[in-house]
């Protein structure tokens, strides 16, 4: 992949976003499901107050909207990416690409970035609904930081998703791989409820994974006087680098002449 491939990358990103916007699974999963969650729990807990990770006491939806936003981002950049790439491999799409001059890094890189674009759009949609419906406050001076956290979070989740997606051989392998990692980690990371009262070992365990840092950093942008912790950003950056390292190695293997994309004997 060279700089002359940038227009090609741009074309494939645009096409990938278009494909996801046309996919009923992506629309339902990434856009509708988080919206239903926020509407449902926002209405049920309209008068509740919760303690945000920063210690501030805020309205339920003020905490819940950004954390479900992180959940939507996870669905788009992690779960959908893993299942999508594994399905592409199973149905022979990756093999098709491999027989053309389109570099596999451009093809899968466009998928990673396209998933990030869709994920961030789904978060924006969530706020477009939640701000007028539940009076969620958005602090203008925190928006640049919020966007930075989202982009870094999308990159981090997407790189791990790409690494895992290129390891799974079939959609049947990919689905449990994606769900069984994402769901438990989302519970201990404070996606569904704040984990400030959880036992310390659990908090430490959650702190190992990037999702808690993503929830903490993004939620911090929506409390008065909140600020994003450098440690949270560092964790996201380290996981992004680790995910990319594995993904790039996997790509080399898949693109190589002895690739397992081609079954060994038929």
């Amino acid at each position, binding site marked *: 992949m060279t700089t002359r491939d940038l227009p090609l990358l741009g074309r494939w990103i645009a096409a990938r976003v278009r494909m996801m916007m046309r996919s009923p699974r992506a629309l339902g999963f990434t856009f509708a499901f988080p919206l239903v969650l926020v509407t449902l729990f926002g209405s049920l807990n309209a008068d509740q107050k919760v303690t945000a990770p920063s210690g501030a006491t805020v309205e339920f939806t003020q905490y819940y909207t950004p954390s479900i936003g992180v959940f939507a981002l996870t669905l788009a950049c992690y779960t959908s990416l893993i299942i999508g790439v594994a399905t592409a491999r199973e149905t022979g799409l990756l093999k098709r690409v*491999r027989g*053309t001059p389109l570099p596999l890094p451009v093809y899968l890189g466009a998928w990673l970035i396209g998933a990030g674009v869709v994920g961030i759009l789904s978060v924006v949609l969530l706020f477009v609904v939640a701000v007028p419906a539940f009076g969620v406050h958005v602090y203008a001076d925190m928006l640049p930081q919020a966007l930075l956290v989202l982009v870094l979070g999308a990159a981090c989740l997407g790189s791990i998703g790409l690494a895992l997606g290129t390891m799974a051989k079939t959609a049947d392998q990919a689905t449990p791989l994606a769900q069984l990692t994402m769901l438990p980690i989302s519970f201990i990371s404070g996606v569904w409820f704040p984990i400030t009262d959880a036992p310390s070992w659990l908090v430490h365990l959650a702190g190992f994974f990037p999702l808690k840092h993503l929830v903490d950093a993004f939620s911090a942008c929506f409390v008065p006087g909140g600020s994003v912790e450098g440690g949270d950003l560092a964790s996201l950056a380290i996981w992004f680098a680790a995910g990319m390292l594995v993904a790039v190695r996997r790509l080399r293997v898949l693109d*190589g002449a002895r690739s397992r994309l081609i079954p060994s004997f038929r």
Partner: protein
Amino acid sequence: MTDAAAIRMLSAMTSTLVHTETAIEVSGVRRAYGPVQALDGVDLTVRRGELLALLGPNGAGKTTLVEILEGHRVADSGRVDVLGHDPARRQRAFLERIGIVLQEEGLDPNLNVGEAVALYSAAYPNPRPVDEVLELVGLGGRAGDRAATMSGGQRRRLDLALGIAGDPEILFLDEPTTGFDPSARRHAWDVINGLRELGKTILLTTHYMEEAQVLADRVVVLSGGRVIAEGTPDTLGGNGESIVTYRQNGRIVRFTTTTPTMDLAPILTAAAERGEELEGLTVTRPSLEDVYLELTEDRS
């Protein structure tokens, strides 16, 4: 000097010239999967602009050979040259010059036909215009259809469209008409013939002898990982033999000969002198299917 020796000498003298006319050159290619020797020393030459049909029973090594030529797989030993490239290196300059139409390649269900062709052709230096590609494969006017809603035959046309979108010099067609009804198959043959007229080199694998007979300039039969026969569809394995049959005195007479005219002359003269009509007299060449079945039966 014998004719054969003269020809060998001539071809050696002009080998550099001949080389530029060669699209694919393979010699001594071997490939094993564990204990199974899928390719056991294959030699093959395909000239530019030629349509070569690769025949052989299942497990003969056809797919392995074609995948080695496409750069999808690596030979254990032997020399492979496709358009001056070693396919195993999977260089981009090589992939820009070939087109691959396999059977089991996926399609993006959420792209329409026109978008898919435009998108995949974007990676090639000199793609063929999308409308022209769709017209060539018989999908003109279907640019808005989604792959998910297409019939099997139409999907195969889209496969072919994606294979030729980059205007490749060599086209690899893997059983392009499997599962087609007779009229769809005729149409596909017209399309393939059209591509040949554009000067494309085409390597076709097929199970349909009629397809090879109609389309191919030359046929190569692979069995047990070796080339067991090659020639034009009409001369393959038959050594120019004809089959003569007729009915005389209620008995069917049948013999094979390389000189039917000479052999028949006395028989016909004698019969004419007696005023006798030889019932059901035919002189035929063995069909490609006859030859193929005979060839592959010997080996199994």
